[in-house]
């Protein structure tokens, strides 16, 4: 069993921004990610809407797990990305079971 210390980066952002966010993520060195679309909840901007045809009020949750080194490269770019759109980012240390 190979357990590796990794960094989990979780982001909630506008659904219409997900495609461009993923482009940025991959360019920054992330090899994989998971996206949950059409989420709802409440953040700084009030209620998140999960019922919008244009995806303009819809939000998505995305997470990626990477090495500390890659995370150091990705996080400044996420900060820059979130300057221009609604969203939030969390990081945590996780144990990744590599099979």
């Amino acid at each position, binding site marked *: 069993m190979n357990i590796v210390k990794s960094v989990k980066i979780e982001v909630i952002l*506008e659904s*219409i*921004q997900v495609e*461009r966010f993923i482009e940025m993520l991959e360019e920054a060195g992330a090899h994989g990610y998971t996206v949950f679309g*059409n989420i709802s909840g409440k953040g700084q901007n009030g209620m998140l809407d*999960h*019922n*919008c*045809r*244009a*995806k*303009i*009020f819809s939000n998505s949750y995305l997470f990626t797990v990477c090495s500390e080194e890659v995370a150091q490269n990705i996080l400044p770019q996420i900060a*820059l990305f979130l*300057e*221009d*759109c609604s969203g939030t980012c969390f990081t945590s240390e996780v144990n990744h079971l590599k099979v």
Partner: protein
Amino acid sequence: MNFLFDMSMVTGNILSPPVLFFFLGLIAVALKSDLEIPQPLPKLFSLYLLMDIGLHGGHELYHSGFSWELVTVLGACFLMASIVPIYSFFILKARFGAADAAAVAATFGSISAVTFITGISFLESQEVAYKGYMVAGMALMESPAIIIGVLLYNIYGKKEQKTKKKTNWGHILRDAFFNGSIMLLVGALLIGILSGDKGWHDFQPFDSIFKGMLCFYLLDNGIVAARRLKALRGNLGFLLSFSILMPLFNAALGIGIAYLIGLSKGNALLFCLLTASASYIAVPAAMRLAIPKSNPAFTVPVALGIVFPFNVIVGIPLYYYIIQQIL
């Protein structure tokens, strides 16, 4: 000329099932009912409506062919989609920042397909002829509005930009010309031309549910519009005035152009609705991506919560009444 306004046209329009279903959506939200159309069905309804009118327009073009009349209509549509955002922007800029002014102006320059479709439904109820090629004009009007909106922001919004990020025109042009609504509308139009009479005949069973789908879609629009209106608190007075006066002004301009280029009454109403309506799906999303500083809490509630119901309830019969007096 008879300037006594025929109220039966207004009541007839309000008492049509699609408009009544829109009211039902508004009332459901006001009464805190749990009535809701599950996602992603509303998206399917809008895709169906675009496909149907695209095919219908294509089938008519298959018979009529391309004419100078069509070129003139397309030119007029392009002109209106280009100038409406410009004067709207300068009016809005007196109250809002350049980002919000550009985004809202672009929604006014663009069109609402469902307003256009409701106009078709009204013309059919009045037994007034119209040309299906007006759909081509509708497809043409979304892109210029987006591009003009972004250009206006780039010229007048520089001071608002904290970081001088380069405008990604590749993304903007892709959103402007190849967003889902335009792809389906233009694609269905071409399929209607290519498949001819046999294609249209085969499509008939699908076409027969048009009214029902429109009712479903407007019910959902009523629910969404009622929820969105809450977001306008604080700017409601200005935006309410702007969102009623601007469609009236644009409609008057549209009727004037329709008179000058000699459109029939039915075509004039559809052209007038294209100029008077505002986009609440494609353009707000495109502007949000192109101008991240713009606030979608303005664009969608204005276009869907005020302009759309005004045009559907009052605008359609009012514009048609004026067209009857002038053309």
